[in-house]
């Protein structure tokens, strides 16, 4: 990919997520890349075994990512869907296909640093073949003003013996109005991990997340972990859904939320359903504030209560997942 004129302010917010934004730029790293500014494709960089294609439509793009059979790459595929305008509507239609025996990481960033009444919609389909290991990580930044109206919808099919990890992170800036819907269908012996983190910081923020895993194959396993914090009037509603519909499948849903400040609302609703008598599905949910002892420990290091709370929120939302 030749040097392109891509607004750095769109990528800058990656630093807040401790991701080196230069990895998304041409000439840096070895990974495949696709950069979108509003409805214009600013650049595509291909690598062996991965085909990236984009077709511009009036308000966005249809983006195809094809990982060819047997492809195993270390460097992540970088996708950036950005807008540096204040308003507008962006619609993204990603179709991601990982053929059999592939191993790939996809790092997507949706960034709207100046958003003030902007709308971003995504309607994504993922098809993951047999014996694959695919990680899809998506970070969001909706600026510091009033956020954006963001509504991503993803349907994900995970093939036999495959491992799929989904990481969705919306913890920086002001999110705005966000509605996330993720449906994952897990086939025989597949493993699904889905981690969603969100942080509503003020009354402009209303975040609704529905993350579902349907265990449709024998011995399929899944863990959904939803973590959120709401403060100063922010609102977060999280549904974690798992259905055990196949023999010996096993799923777990975990929702943890922290609510701080007057007017803030957190609601966590784990929903589990089993239609096969040999399946096993469990859930746990917690809502509340941090233990006073934790705050005291940090305050004894000279932090104010607010600083201590912010550190604990940061820690909760940055906690690395262990499986």
């Amino acid at each position, binding site marked *: 990919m030749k040097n392109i004129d891509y607004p750095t302010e769109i990528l800058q917010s990656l630093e807040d997520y401790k991701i080196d934004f230069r990895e998304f730029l041409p000439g840096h790293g070895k990974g495949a890349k696709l950069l979108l500014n509003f409805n214009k494709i600013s650049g595509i960089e291909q690598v062996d075994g991965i085909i990236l294609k984009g077709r511009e439509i009036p308000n966005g793009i249809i983006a195809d990512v094809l990982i060819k059979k047997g492809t195993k790459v270390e460097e992540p595929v970088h996708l950036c869907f950005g807008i540096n305008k204040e308003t507008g509507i962006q619609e993204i239609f990603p179709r991601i296909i990982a053929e059999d025996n592939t191993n790939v990481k996809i790092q997507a960033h949706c960034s709207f640093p100046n958003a003030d009444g902007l709308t971003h919609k995504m309607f994504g389909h993922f098809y993951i073949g047999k014996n694959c290991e695919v990680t899809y990580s998506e970070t969001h930044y909706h600026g510091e003003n009033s956020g954006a109206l963001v509504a991503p919808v993803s349907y994900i099919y995970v093939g036999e013996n495959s491992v799929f990890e989904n990481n969705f992170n919306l913890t920086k800036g002001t999110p705005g109005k966000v509605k996330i819907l993720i449906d994952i269908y897990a086939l025989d012996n597949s493993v699904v991990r889905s981690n969603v983190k969100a942080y509503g910081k003020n009354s402009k923020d209303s975040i609704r997340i529905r993350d579902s895993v349907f265990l449709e194959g024998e011995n399929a396993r899944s863990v959904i972990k939803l973590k959120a914090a709401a403060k100063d009037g922010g609102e977060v509603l999280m549904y974690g859904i798992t259905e055990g519909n196949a023999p010996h499948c096993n799923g777990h849903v975990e929702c943890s939320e922290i609510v701080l400040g007057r007017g803030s609302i957190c609601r966590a609703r784990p929903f589990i359903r089993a239609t096969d008598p040999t399946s096993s599905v469990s859930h746990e949910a917690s809502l509340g504030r941090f*233990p*006073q*002892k*934790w705050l*005291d*420990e*940090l*305050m*004894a*290091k*000279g*932090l*104010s*209560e607010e600083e201590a709370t912010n*550190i*604990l929120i*940061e*820690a*909760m*939302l*940055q*906690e*690395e997942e262990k499986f």
Partner: protein
Amino acid sequence: MLLELKEVTIPTLDQKCVIINEVSFGIKEGSIHAIIGPNGSGKSTLAYAIMGLGNYKVLHGKILFDGFDITNLSITERAKLGITLAWQEPARIDGLSVYRYITLGLKDTTKMREKVVEALNIVNLEPEKYINRKIDESLSGGERKRVELAAAIAMEPRLIILDEPDSGLDFIVLEDFMNIFEKIKRLNMTILLITHREDIGMVADYGTLLWRGDHIITDVFPKVMLRYCAKAGLKEFCKRTLFKDGAICFDDEYIDRIFREEGVS
């Protein structure tokens, strides 16, 4: 005196009874001062009240730090004056690294890495192995306590309160901790050591004995320990074990006198 307590009374949260009853004593700057006493004597309560924890309010009396009345100051304000506390069972905050945790209390944010490395070295944790570890369940109880101590040391406080640092540690680790306390003392930091173990208390210069919330004695540590044994009626233990052939010995006549004062023949 670096810290002075003047007739300090601390009630239970519901204020129905008193945990600490008009306690007065002082802590000399640069010393290791142990507060000893049996379970339930109010040692930890006193430590938390000195740190300023919300559930341990002083009902009567004053706490002076370097002559300045800190009785009504918040934890944060006291920490900024140079008081900190290393907890008996510090929390495990999964998302924080050891590095981040130790840097939280640094007053000066220059050369942060050097300061973290130095603090980890003092507590005998290899910096390169621990600096990026998470403060989570993967740390053993002893490692977590060392990280807590390192965080306290990195703050360069004037007074470190160590709340039962011996709890849950085996004797090998305990010996190491006592060496660490000596190192902290050499950094010109004053240590207030809360313990109910005579062996760890022996590292202290001075001591205070609390008994059911009352102040019994403040003196050089061996005298305080002797009084503790007398109140507990542990004469044989005292003569045969505690002060037998040590550098600090009391003759039998003196020991008998102290025990008689406590009504033990």
